[in-house]
């Protein structure tokens, strides 16, 4: 399985991924701006076409303005190319540079002056592409101003390809911003007009910023084409509005993205932090043994995470109550059992004094034996229950662990004459802080456990030593291994790893529970493990050196 870093699948990353949908908002805005521009252009185009139409109609009424007799002069073709280049370049200074190709007719220019308006230029050419009339010039004043700031430059660079890529969807295509191509396009426009085909063309002006719209219309005289009208208008105004709108759209989007993204990251971080803190609290609250070691601080915030924290806190409290109930179970049971045991015991004691046959007395003795065992069990149960109270009420002292263990092992040799004990006392004292009585009791329980399980004729090995700032007390015995399933719960109340209960020893699984209580009280740790070759069991009690 591939491990994915948590950062990549975390709430922050997920929120950022979801927020990518926000990108659609500027996209929609852009689309809207482009649509608006395209409407404006369509309108402009229609106006221009109708202007061209009107002009051609006006001029077609005056065939005398387009005399055919004007003879071709040498180099005419050359002139024609130059003329067309001028068309294409949209140079405001056109008239002065037209030279021989400019053969204006006063009449035509008068008519044109009437029709001309600001930021537009009208040409009238005769069938031989000689300019018979020219009016107005393509002002670029309304074109978008040149970028003034770095950000604007960046924005323009962003906008330009966007606008271009969206133009094909517009009313007419803009000729690519290559002057040579524009020139060819204009030539073909004039040619096509002279062939009787009205055309419209969008192209870039010479300055490469302004978009120019030109409409060409043939001038008919009867069935004959006598010339063409070309009306040009700069779309600078529209374009400026569009660019400004796109700029403001982009700027706003960027700001919204930055602010929104930052807010989202902050929000997600706060969420993550709270969830993470809750997770760590929950993790800390219960230790490896399933004991409740801490509390989850209930959040006061009223949102779902706050509610979750409160629920967890409540769950933990309930669990703690239940755990406490379970741990007190032994004590309660002992307390509750004592009264009925006392009834049975006192009844048996009384019964002994009654007249009874010898055969019947046997049953009394057996019943008494059972009650005594019950009493012993109760005593053991209450031992565990009381221990905690006794430990809390005692004051810790510094003592030599080695000396206590040494004394204990001497005692065990007397108490368990049939068992063998191995212990070598370390030469240096091992000082720890605690209750020597309690440590002796802990060792009692470990030894008791070891003697119960030790294989015949094997020694129980006890050792005391220090290891990295801790004092260690270990008890090893040869004998059956403990199954791995039981190991983690071995030190829990009422859990016994014993497979079959012996008659002399009643096992409630309280001995190792007591060991754990004492270890916990000393801030130490107790663990059990099987020997490497599974030939026995090793118990280890670890406590920081005093």
């Amino acid at each position, binding site marked *: 399985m591939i491990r994915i870093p948590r950062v990549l699948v975390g709430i922050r990353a997920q929120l950022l991924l979801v927020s990518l949908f926000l990108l659609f908002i500027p996209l929609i805005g852009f689309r809207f701006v482009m649509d608006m521009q395209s409407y404006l252009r369509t309108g402009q185009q229609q106006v221009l076409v109708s202007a061209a139409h009107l002009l051609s109609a006006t001029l077609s009424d005056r065939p005398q303005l387009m005399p055919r007799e004007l003879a071709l002069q040498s180099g005419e073709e050359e002139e024609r190319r130059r003329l067309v280049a001028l068309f294409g370049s949209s140079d405001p200074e056109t008239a002065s540079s037209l030279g021989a190709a400019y053969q204006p007719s006063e009449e035509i220019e008068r008519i044109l002056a009437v029709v001309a308006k600001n930021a537009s230029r009208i040409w009238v050419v005769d069938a031989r592409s000689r300019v018979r009339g020219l009016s107005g010039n393509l002002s670029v004043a309304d074109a978008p101003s040149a970028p003034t700031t770095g950000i604007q430059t960046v924005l323009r660079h962003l906008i330009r390809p966007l606008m271009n890529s969206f133009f094909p969807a517009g009313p007419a295509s803009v000729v690519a911003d290559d002057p040579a191509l524009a020139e060819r396009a204009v030539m073909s426009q004039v040619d096509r007009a002279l062939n009787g085909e009205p055309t419209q063309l969008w192209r870039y002006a010479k300055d490469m910023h302004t978009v120019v719209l030109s409409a060409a219309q043939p001038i008919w005289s009867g069935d004959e084409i006598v010339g063409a009208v070309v009306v040009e208008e700069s779309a600078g105004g529209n374009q400026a509005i569009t660019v400004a709108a796109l700029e403001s759209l982009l700027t706003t989007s960027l700001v919204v993205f930055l602010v929104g993204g930052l807010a989202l990251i902050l929000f997600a971080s706060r969420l993550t932090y709270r969830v993470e803190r809750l997770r760590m609290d929950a993790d800390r609250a219960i230790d490896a043994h399933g004991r409740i070691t801490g509390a989850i601080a209930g959040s006061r915030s009223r949102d779902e995470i706050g509610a979750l924290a409160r629920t967890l806190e409540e769950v933990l409290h309930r669990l703690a109550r239940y755990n406490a109930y379970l741990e007190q179970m032994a*004590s309660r049971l*002992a*307390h*509750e059992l*004592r*009264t009925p*045991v*006392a*009834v049975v*015991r*006192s*009844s048996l*004691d*009384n019964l002994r*004094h009654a007249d009874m046959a010898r055969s019947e007395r046997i049953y009394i003795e057996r019943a008494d034996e059972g009650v005594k065992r019950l*009493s*012993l069990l*109760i*005593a*053991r149960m*209450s*031992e565990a*229950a*009381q*221990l905690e*109270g*006794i430990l809390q*009420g005692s004051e810790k002292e510094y003592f030599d662990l080695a000396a*206590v263990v040494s*004394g*204990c*092992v*001497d*005692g*065990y040799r*007397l*108490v368990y004459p049939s068992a063998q004990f191995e212990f070598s006392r370390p030469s240096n004292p091992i000082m720890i802080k605690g209750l*020597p*009585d309690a*440590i*002796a*009791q802990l*060792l*009692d329980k470990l030894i008791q456990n070891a003697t119960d399980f030790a294989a015949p004729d094997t020694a129980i090995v006890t050792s005391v030593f220090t290891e990295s700032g801790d004092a260690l007390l270990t008890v090893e015995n040869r004998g059956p291994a403990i199954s791995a399933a039981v190991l983690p719960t071995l030190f829990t109340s009422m859990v016994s790893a014993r497979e079959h209960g012996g008659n002399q020893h009643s096992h409630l699984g309280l001995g190792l529970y007591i060991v754990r209580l004492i270890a916990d009280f000393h801030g130490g740790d107790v663990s059990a493990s099987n020997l490497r070759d599974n030939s026995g069991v090793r118990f280890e009690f670890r406590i920081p050196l005093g």
Partner: protein
Amino acid sequence: MLKRIAIVEDDSSIRKNYADALVRGGYEVEAFGLRSDAMNAFRTRLPDLAVIDIGLGSETDGGFTLCRELRAMSATLPIIFLSARDSDIDIVSGLRLGADDYVTKDVSLPHLIARIAALFRRLDALRQPARAEDVLHRGDMTLDINRLAVSWKARDVVLTVTEFWMVHALTKFPGHVKNRDQLMREAELVVDDNTITSHMKRIRKKFLAVDQDFDEIETIYGMGYRWKTN
């Protein structure tokens, strides 16, 4: 004249069983199930000894209250607490209220009767001069076995019957280690290791109260206790 023993115990089976056993033991017995009944009877006439359960019906500490009231009426009346509870706190509170002994309910009847007899013997002996053969001298300590009284450096140490027997067991053969089982047997206790430990702790405290330098009881870890010989 027969000694009169009052039993205050809310469990009727136990009450009757104990009453029967005590009657057989040669005592006159009054048995009560409620604290109020017992107090009414005591106001008219005090018994010679009272065996009191701590939890009486709905009163979880009714026995303690009763003990306090009885002690107020008589300073010498022997009182034994009999309870299903065996926590240290209960034992200490019971003894602090002036009870002479504290036994848990799983004590056997012969043991209970032996304790009662011992308390009566102590009461009687206090009225008579001490007899030399019943007195044990161990260094600074004197044990009067008849009166169950102990003195250390000529000052009385007030011990319960249980504690007296433990001290007696330790001092009978000073220097010998007595393990927990032996101590229990001597004190006729059915208790666990913790109770022995806390009994020894209390005994030490009582001696320390009369002599700050008392250090005669030695703990032999894993084995038991020993009375030091000088």
